[in-house]
C-alpha cells in the first residue's frame, strides 16, 4: 500500500526528538512511530495499526466470541484511537493505551448487545460452527492444547462476567502485568488481582468436568 511521508520542519523534528527522549524513559518500543503519527504522519499510524492489530483482534475475539464482531469492533477501536490519539500523553506505553481503547470498545459492544443475549448468541454460534480456530499458537506449548480443549475454554470464558473475563484475558492470554492492566482498565491493582483470581476460580468450576475427564481423573 502506498503511503505518504510527511516532511518535518526543523522545529517539528526538534519537538519530535524531545518527545522521543521523554518516552525513552519508559522504554516504549512504539515511541518513535507515535511521535511521527502525532506530527501528522499517516504512514506511522498505519505501521502502528499493523503492529497492534493482532493483539487487539485477539483480545476482542476472546471478549466477544466471534470473528465478525471482533473485526467490526477492532476497526471501531482503531478509528477511535486515531480520533483521540492527541490525548495520548506518553505517560504509559502506547500498547497500554491501545489495550484501553480496545477494552472500552469491547465492553461498550457487550453492553449494547446486552450481556445475556450476547452470551447466548456466542454460545449458540460456537456450538453450531465451532469457535474460530487460531492459525498460529501463542507459544510452543499451545500445540498441546487440542481443538476440543480450546472450544471448552473459550466457551467457559464466555460464561464469565465481562469485568472478570477482561482482567483474565489481559493477564493470562495477553501477558500484561497487574500494573498495565490497572492502567488499561483504570482500576486499582488490588482490584485487578482480585478479579483475576475470582475469574480463575470461576473458570475452574466451569471446566472441572472437562479437566478431570480429559485424563481419566488425573488432572491435565
Amino acid at each position, binding site marked *: *500500500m502506498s503511503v505518504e511521508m510527511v516532511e518535518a520542519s526543523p522545529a517539528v523534528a526538534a519537538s519530535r526528538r524531545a518527545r522521543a527522549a521523554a518516552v525513552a524513559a519508559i522504554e516504549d518500543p512504539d515511541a518513535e512511530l507515535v511521535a511521527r503519527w502525532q506530527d501528522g504522519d*499517516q504512514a506511522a*499510524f*498505519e505501521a502502528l*495499526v*499493523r503492529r497492534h*492489530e*493482532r*493483539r*487487539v*483482534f*485477539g483480545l476482542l*475475539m*476472546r471478549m466477544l466470541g466471534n*470473528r465478525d464482531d*471482533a*473485526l467490526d469492533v*477492532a*476497526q471501531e477501536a*482503531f*478509528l*477511535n484511537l*486515531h*480520533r*483521540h490519539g492527541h490525548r495520548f500523553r506518553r505517560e504509559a506505553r502506547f500498547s497500554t493505551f491501545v489495550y484501553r481503547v480496545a477494552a472500552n470498545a469491547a465492553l461498550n459492544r457487550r453492553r449494547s448487545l446486552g450481556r445475556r443475549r450476547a452470551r447466548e448468541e456466542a454460545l449458540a454460534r460456537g456450538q453450531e460452527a465451532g469457535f*474460530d480456530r*487460531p*492459525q*498460529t*499458537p*501463542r*507459544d510452543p*506449548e*499451545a500445540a*498441546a*492444547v487440542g481443538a476440543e*480443549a*480450546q472450544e*471448552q*475454554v*473459550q466457551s467457559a*470464558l464466555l460464561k464469565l462476567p465481562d469485568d472478570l473475563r477482561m482482567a*483474565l484475558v489481559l493477564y*493470562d*492470554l495477553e501477558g500484561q502485568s497487574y500494573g498495565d492492566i490497572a492502567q488499561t482498565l483504570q482500576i486499582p491493582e488490588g482490584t485487578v*488481582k482480585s478479579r*483475576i*483470581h475470582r475469574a*480463575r*476460580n470461576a*473458570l*475452574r468450576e466451569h*471446566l*472441572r468436568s472437562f*479437566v*478431570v475427564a480429559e485424563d481419566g481423573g488425573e*488432572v*491435565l
Partner: protein
Amino acid sequence: MRTDRVRARLSAYLEGDVSSREATRIEAALDASSELREELRELQATVRLLRGLPRPEAPPALTEQVVARVRAGEADPVRWRDWLHRLFEPTFAVPLAASVAALLVFLGIPTGGVPGGEPAPGTPIASVAPSAPVVTVAHDTSGQATPRVRNPNRAALRMLRRQRLQMMLRGAGHPHSASLASQMEGDIVLANFSEGRRRR
C-alpha cells in the same frame, strides 16, 4: 486457616501473590487436605489450558480497512462547526425554536424588534379594540341558571400572540413559522384551559 479462605487464595498462591506467612499457612492447609490439593491441581490445569490458547490471527485486510476509513474521514474529530451545523437541521432546529419561543412567551419577555421582524421598535403590530365583556345565562340539566362571561378581546389577544410567535420563529429562520405558531398557540390555549380546570 479456614478451608474456604485457602480455596479463595489458591490462585494468588500460584502467582506468588501471597506473603511468606500466608504461603506457609496455605501449604499447611494443603498438606492437611487432599480436597484442597485436588483443587490446586485443577486450578493449575485450568491456567495451563487458558495460557495454551493461541492468539487468533487478525484478518489480513484489517489494517487496510482501517486506513481506508481514516482516509474517508471517518476518524476525523467532531468539531464545534459540525455541532453548529446540526443545530440548523430541521429535526433539531424546529423543536429548539419552538421551545425557545414558548419559553419567551411563558416568561413574558417582549419580543418586538426581533431581527428579521418587520415592525420598527415601538410600532404596534396589532391593536385590540376595548369592548365590554358579554354576559350570557346558561341553564344546566337541573334547570338552574348559570351566568357565563365571554370576553370578545380574547380572540384579538390570541391573534396578537400568534403574530408574535410567527415573528420569533421567522427570526429563528424557520420556513413554516405561520403554521407552527398556530399549532403552538393552540397548545398554549389548551394548556391554559387545563390549568383553569385544575384550579376549579
